[in-house]
């Protein structure tokens, strides 16, 4: 029983990271109807920025904040420079563009930082908590994710800009007629997604070690989480990410060798697509004509 709970909690910590990245995927999907395959590599690149700053003797949280800011601006620039020109192109064109971005970020990171594993410091001490049920490190990851989610929720729920972003994602033409600069809202969405991804990368790097391919597995889990939650639902993405984290951990501990854990994600994707394509929370919006 004790071991089971331990695995659940460490699954939640991993799930919190998947949830963050899943949320980033959902934000971009809602805004531009596009699955951003470069989301993981963008997060990886952000983590390298944080790593560089930490190695330059900056305090961890200062590096964290600067990295988020840089990632936010970077995400907006990517939307402006790379995504906007294919805005009205067929969806496959845009998908290929994000795959191109994936390769660019991966290769650029390898070129600048090399493909060797780098150690990444954790801001949290590694001490057992609640009679060794979980570690302070897991607790820290979960806490950071929760703070971020609450902050995002408040932003989208209570601010005029947050509301305008939701409106622009839902009905761009009507949003324009209401005076909302839809292009700016899309850019903001990419900025937020990049910053959220940066948080995920920084939180996962102490566990996985930093290298240009660090996020490929994480992105797959995050994608599974987003799909499980219904790809259009931010709440669904978070819950889906947590479910994937716990499932992956339990199955890896009790059922199969942990090298096969990634298969769990793929099987989950297939199950969701076959039996519940709308996911758990992706119900259609009520519409009366």
């Amino acid at each position: 029983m004790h071991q089971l709970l331990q695995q659940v909690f460490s699954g939640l910590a991993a799930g919190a990271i998947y949830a963050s990245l899943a949320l980033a995927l959902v934000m971009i999907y809602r805004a531009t109807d596009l699955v951003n395959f470069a989301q993981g590599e963008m997060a990886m690149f952000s983590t390298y920025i944080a790593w560089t700053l930490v190695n330059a003797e900056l305090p961890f949280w200062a590096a964290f904040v600067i990295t988020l800011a840089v990632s936010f601006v970077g995400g907006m620039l990517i939307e402006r420079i790379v995504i906007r020109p294919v805005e009205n192109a067929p969806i496959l064109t845009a998908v290929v563009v994000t795959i191109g971005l994936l390769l660019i970020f991966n290769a650029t990171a390898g070129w600048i930082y090399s493909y060797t594993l780098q150690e990444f410091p954790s801001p949290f001490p590694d001490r057992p908590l609640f009679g060794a049920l979980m570690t302070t490190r897991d607790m820290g990851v979960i806490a950071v994710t929760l703070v971020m989610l609450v902050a995002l929720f408040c932003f989208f729920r209570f601010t005029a800009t947050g509301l305008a972003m939701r409106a622009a994602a839902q009905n761009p033409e009507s949003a324009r007629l209401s005076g909302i600069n839809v292009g700016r809202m899309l850019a903001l969405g990419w900025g937020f997604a990049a910053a959220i991804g940066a948080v995920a990368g920084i939180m996962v790097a102490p566990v996985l070690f930093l290298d240009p391919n660090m996020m490929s597995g994480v992105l797959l889990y995050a994608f599974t989480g987003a799909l499980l939650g219904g790809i259009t639902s931010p709440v669904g993405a978070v819950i889906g990410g947590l479910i994937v984290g716990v499932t992956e951990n339990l199955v890896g501990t009790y059922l199969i060798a942990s090298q096969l854990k990634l298969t769990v994600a793929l099987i989950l994707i297939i199950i969701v697509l076959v039996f519940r394509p709308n996911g758990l929370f992706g119900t259609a919006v009520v519409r009366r004509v």
Partner: protein
Amino acid sequence: MAAILELRAVKAFYGQSEVLHGIDLVVEEAGMTVLLGANGAGKTTTLRAICGMVRSEGAILFGGHRLERCTTEQIAGFGVAHVPEGRGTFIGLTVEENLRIGGYTAAGRPDEKIQLMYGYFPILAQRRRQQAGALSGGEQQMLAIARALMMSPRLLVLDEPSFGLAPRVVEAIFAIIERIRREQQVSVLLVEQNASLALEMADRAYLLETGYVVSSGSAKMLADDPQIRRSYLGY
């Protein structure tokens, strides 16, 4: 009466094909102008050209601005509130959030204006926390008009507000439009299939056919024109 909106020889295009062939049109300050015409005459396109949603040539003058050179969101910022075909409801947001979006560009606190809208449309106050997509057609039309009025517009552009609604609902909506026009001194440009109702309310009217203005003048004059009566009023 001074003109608040003036179109001079406006052409509009979908891709390469020209669908408006040089339209002249005036909306007077605090007046109501109605566009009549059969399907495909270019009524909606005229409205879309005014709001920068299709490519246009010629001059579209509004409060010292050349609208044909501006983006849709800039034009909205100048005080042109357009309720599009299909009402433009944000169906996934609540009624109150829809209204808040209307107040996005306007100065001042939105809360007071929202209360004012609930005064005009009490049904919206009852449904303020509901998803807008769950409203009936008439309620959605009221919401769309209220959302537009949240912008404190100088010109209200309405594209077939009666579309798909029961006659009694249409009457209620037009009564409120008329009341708002008098109380808030907002000018109205209206596209309407229900010609007799529209001519009754409007002071100026334009008749469009295949991208040309074929007849224009006071609403009374058009209502008395025997040919228009035969074709559009049915008596």
